[in-house]
């Protein structure tokens, strides 16, 4: 039937449902301090479904519920949108991990690493073919990330990231048991915020070191010569492609959830290894699992723990809250100095312990730690003290809910 494979129809259905649900939430949420939070939860769930749309409807152009087989990359939806110039999917600054099935978009961190090493040259990739060089692919990734960051800033972190949803659900579980959260000292929180920039820089430098042969024609680490039809066989560093993905907690979360739901064959995960799968697997490593466990535990105690050290968040922050991008970023948090009474509610409710909206006198109070969850606007009890402005227009303002 035509409707099964109609992208337009599916997109319209999705949008209509979304608009209806948004209206429903805004209209029928009586508690004014929960309206935006409820809306955000809905948007996060909708974003999760949109990111893994391939699991729901199957790859476009093929029958529904097609068995996904054993390869986690079989069901990338829209991966061929740009053809073989950019076949890994649209870069969106959320942790839409490359490895799970059914993705519609891709994590830019994976793309940046992979296009430096091992896919700097044109040619074969992971079951795809690149007709553009690594430099060109990187230009596309950075261009997309810069464009999106300028338009929406860290809105992606607060409203669209699947790992953010995971941490918010953990927070809701904690609240259900009426357990109070912990907070870092300002000094520690600031240090964590700076650490994420070091993290992203470190992994990019590592990728350049691994890819030195392809980029500069000389090996900085023995064994990094390109080779093999899959582009991964490169001597001793063959198992160190995409170094950040070896520690990222989203990878095991996405893969294990899909295995548990039956959308991925677990034997594939455990068979594709360079040793014991839980140590040096291609799709799962011991470090991945350990980081996921640690982050989960810490997210129970500290709200949005991973967001404080997330390198992707750091990348988005660089292109939205630091000069020169800060001057032109379109989504800003604004404070009215006159109406603010310095009650401190905004500072207390902020999940990432951002403080600029409290400490700064007025004007643009967006900072790199702010993920634009708008909890401060929602909880601010003074009318128009805090507002969210997009392209100079106020789209959300604090209300007197007292």
């Amino acid at each position: 039937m035509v409707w099964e494979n109609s992208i337009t129809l599916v997109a319209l259905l999705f949008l209509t449902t979304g608009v209806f649900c948004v209206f429903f939430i805004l209209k029928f949420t009586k508690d004014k301090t929960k309206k935006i939070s409820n809306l955000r939860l809905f948007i996060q769930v909708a974003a999760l479904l949109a990111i893994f749309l391939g699991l729901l409807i199957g790859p476009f152009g093929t029958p529904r519920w097609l068995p996904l087989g054993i390869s986690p990359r079989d069901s990338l939806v829209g991966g061929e949108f740009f053809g073989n110039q950019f076949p890994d999917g649209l870069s969106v600054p959320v942790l839409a991990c490359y490895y799970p099935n059914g993705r519609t978009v891709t994590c830019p961190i994976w793309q940046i690493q992979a296009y430096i090493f091992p896919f700097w040259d044109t040619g074969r990739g992971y079951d795809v073919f690149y007709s553009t060089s690594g430099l060109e692919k990187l230009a596309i990734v950075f261009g997309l990330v810069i464009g999106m960051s300028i338009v929406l800033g860290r809105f992606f972190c607060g409203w669209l990231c699947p790992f953010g949803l995971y941490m918010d659900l953990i927070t809701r579980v904690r609240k259900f048991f009426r357990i109070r959260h912990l907070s870092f000292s300002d000094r520690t929180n600031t240090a964590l915020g700076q650490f994420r920039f070091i993290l992203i820089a470190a992994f990019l430098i590592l990728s350049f070191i691994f890819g030195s042969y392809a980029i500069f024609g000389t090996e900085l680490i023995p064994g990094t010569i390109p080779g093999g039809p899959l582009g991964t066989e490169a001597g001793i560093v063959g198992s160190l492609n995409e170094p950040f993905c070896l520690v990222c907690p989203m990878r095991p979360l996405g893969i294990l959830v899909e295995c548990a739901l039956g959308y991925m064959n677990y034997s594939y995960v455990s068979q594709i290894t360079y040793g014991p799968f839980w140590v040096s697997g291609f799709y799962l490593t011991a470090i991945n699992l350990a980081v996921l466990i640690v982050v989960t535990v810490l997210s129970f105690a500290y709200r949005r723990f991973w967001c404080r050290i997330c390198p992707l968040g750091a990348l988005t922050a660089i292109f939205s809250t630091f000069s020169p991008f800060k001057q032109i970023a379109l989504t800003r948090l604004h404070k009215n100095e006159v109406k603010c009474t310095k009650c401190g509610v905004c500072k207390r409710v902020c999940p990432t312990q951002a403080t600029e909206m409290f400490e700064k006198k007025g004007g643009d109070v967006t900072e790199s730690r702010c993920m634009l969850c708008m909890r401060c606007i929602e909880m601010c009890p003074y009318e128009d003290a805090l507002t969210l402005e997009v392209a100079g227009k106020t789209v959300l303002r604090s209300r007197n809910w007292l």
Partner: protein
Amino acid sequence: MGSRSFQGLNLVLVWVIGFAMIFLFLSNFCCSVIGQSETGFTTTNKFDIPLLNSSVSFGADGNYKKALLENNEWHFFNLHFNSVQSAEKLDLRVSAKDCEVTIFSCLIYNSTFTGERAKSATVRYHVVGNGEQVFDLGLDPKLGDWGVVIDGVFKGETDGWRLSSDGTLTITGATGNVTLSYYGFPASFRDSIDGEDQIFSQHSVVAITSFVVGFIVLLAASVRIRRSSNNLLISSNQSKFRDRT
């Protein structure tokens, strides 16, 4: 009279079509019989390269149309093995130095890559003696990737083998079993490789991305400038109002 000539014409046409069909039917047998001038080889045949102290033989029976030794290189035309009838007949150029090569299989076949048809090839051989082997299957190195496995170990390029720009593979230092695999790119990829006159289409994604980002930056900058000028106007109006009062 008209109808009679019409019937006559029909009769002629029927006979012509009938003869044509019989001829086409028979020509399959005739042509294949006429075209059959292949030479068979077995595992006992040895193709020596005296000046390089080497020889080439086959590990299975097959046929070739012609075999020539030119410039210390054996050139086999329309080579195929009896055990694999479905594979394409191929032209193989093989040379060796200071070793004995036994070729167990040499195939070019169609496979699929990301859903599209692509050409692949495999050569499996055994080598005795620490020498050099050279293979040329007439495959364009720009249109596919080569992989080399020596005694079960995958070798990166330049680690015991090299690929020349004309598609010739030279393997050095191998003793034992060697597998050469070629993974061809589908036709749609070839268009993007060969299209020297399609600069924009080869780089369309980065061009469009740059345009979109540039547009966003300009738009954001204009919003910023407009806002700044509005703020200036408001503050200047406020100061004028204060001055008057």
